[in-house]
């Protein structure tokens, strides 16, 4: 008896340790009722903690029940005891099966994993929302890439019609509807770097929500739906990319690097640091 009392009571203080912190960061829209219920549970637990130290008699508990107005069911408790324990065991067991890595950990660890799991599942739906707007490739094609055939059959100078401009090595940086989200799309020469481009994008503080890249016949196409972790302008991103991808860019190269932001020619005529790309 005493052992099981202890078990029940020790579970709760541990929850208050992790659970509340997690839940504070939690988006309340997704799991509202759970959050408030867990909070009540935590309050119960903390009250229990206080109560257990003092004389444990029904008098003290009646006071308890009054303060936890939503949770007091004094009528049921004495009858439901063994059944409740079984229910709890069953449900914990079920939870262990549903939550990743939930099989062998302690109950408070299980609950922590549950919160983490629920937050992750929530982020999946949010992610789908985030990507809803940006499914169309701007540069000739579908979600998975440009129409390479047209690109290579064009002859010595390939030009893409992007809006009203004709570009050979386009770099496009566009704002998306959501704050700090942008679409970055490009075609560039394959100079030996590929995945490095994705890493460079990350290095600019842009999380790649969804990125697709393909290298074919000395050209690379890439499109990234990104979310910035700071306020960065399209211009910053664009210029950084130009410096990375077109290291020989200078005034005369302006025709090679038009962009979706109308830039005066003079802007491009800057000394450019060539990409050194120290990989190994």
């Amino acid at each position, binding site marked *: 008896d005493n052992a099981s009392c202890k078990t029940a009571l020790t579970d709760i203080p541990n929850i208050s340790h992790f659970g509340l912190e997690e839940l504070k960061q939690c988006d309340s829209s997704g799991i509202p009722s759970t959050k408030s219920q867990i909070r009540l549970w935590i309050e119960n637990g903390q009250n229990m903690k206080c109560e257990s130290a003092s004389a444990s008699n029904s008098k003290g*508990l009646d006071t308890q029940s009054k303060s936890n107005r939503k949770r007091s069911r004094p009528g049921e408790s004495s009858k439901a005891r063994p059944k409740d324990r079984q229910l709890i065991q069953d449900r914990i067991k079920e939870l262990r099966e549903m939550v990743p890595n939930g099989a062998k950990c302690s109950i408070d660890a299980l609950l922590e994993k549950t919160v983490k799991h629920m937050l992750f599942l929530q982020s999946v739906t949010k992610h789908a929302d985030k990507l809803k707007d940006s499914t169309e490739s701007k540069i000739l094609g579908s979600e998975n890439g440009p129409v390479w055939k047209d690109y290579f059959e064009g002859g010595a100078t390939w030009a893409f019609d992007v809006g009203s401009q004709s570009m050979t090595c386009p770099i496009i940086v566009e704002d998306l509807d959501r704050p700090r989200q942008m679409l970055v799309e490009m075609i560039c020469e394959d100079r030996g770097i590929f995945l490095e481009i994705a890493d460079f994008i990350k290095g600019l503080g*842009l999380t790649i929500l969804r990125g697709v890249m393909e290298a074919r016949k000395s050209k690379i196409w890439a499109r990234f739906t990104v979310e910035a*972790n700071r306020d960065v302008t399209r211009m910053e991103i664009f210029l950084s990319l130009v410096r990375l991808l077109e290291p020989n860019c200078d005034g005369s190269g302006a025709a090679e690097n038009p962009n979706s932001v109308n830039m005066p020619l003079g802007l491009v005529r800057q000394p450019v640091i060539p990409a050194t790309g120290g990989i190994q």
Partner: protein
Amino acid sequence: MWFAVVCVQTDKASLLAEVLEHVKELKRQTSAMTMMAAAVGGDEDDDAAPVQMLPTEADELGVDAAEDGEGRLVVRASLCCEDRPDLIPDIIRALAALRLRAHRAEITTLGGRVRSVLLITAEEGEEGADEGGDGIDEECVASHRRHECIASVQEALRGVMDRRAACSNDTSSSGGGGGGGSIKRQRMNYGAHEQCSV
């Protein structure tokens, strides 16, 4: 005291029931999305098995290989792990050590975790496991090469993923691991500078 415990247990039972319902509901919602993502994310090759595009909570690595239209071996690797600044450089290094290079990549980041699906080919001029063809079936050699390739890519990428586990100082991902609020250090010097000298 006993009475108090029972009160709590009653709460626990119904609370757990609600939690279970919530988790089930979230799983229902996301499984639809996961399947959609897998369908959309497949590459041009219709024969390839549909590949999960979304990151999962547990680390995953899957490597398979096939020959493309011109008989070249193409390895497909799907790895999912916690995002970190040196993840992509590590992948590049691991592949380069095998004289391999990705020619197609699909990257999805969510909840601080990232999945990269890569199509990998050997660098130009790479022979592969040429066991001396006299009297050995072409088919056999090709199959052997395929298995070796898969195994070495698998080992290399497993190393990339495990490196993270080995040097992680905290295991909880509060959704901010990937790029939630931290400015990533630019680990590789590509020679680009941030200042805009207009």
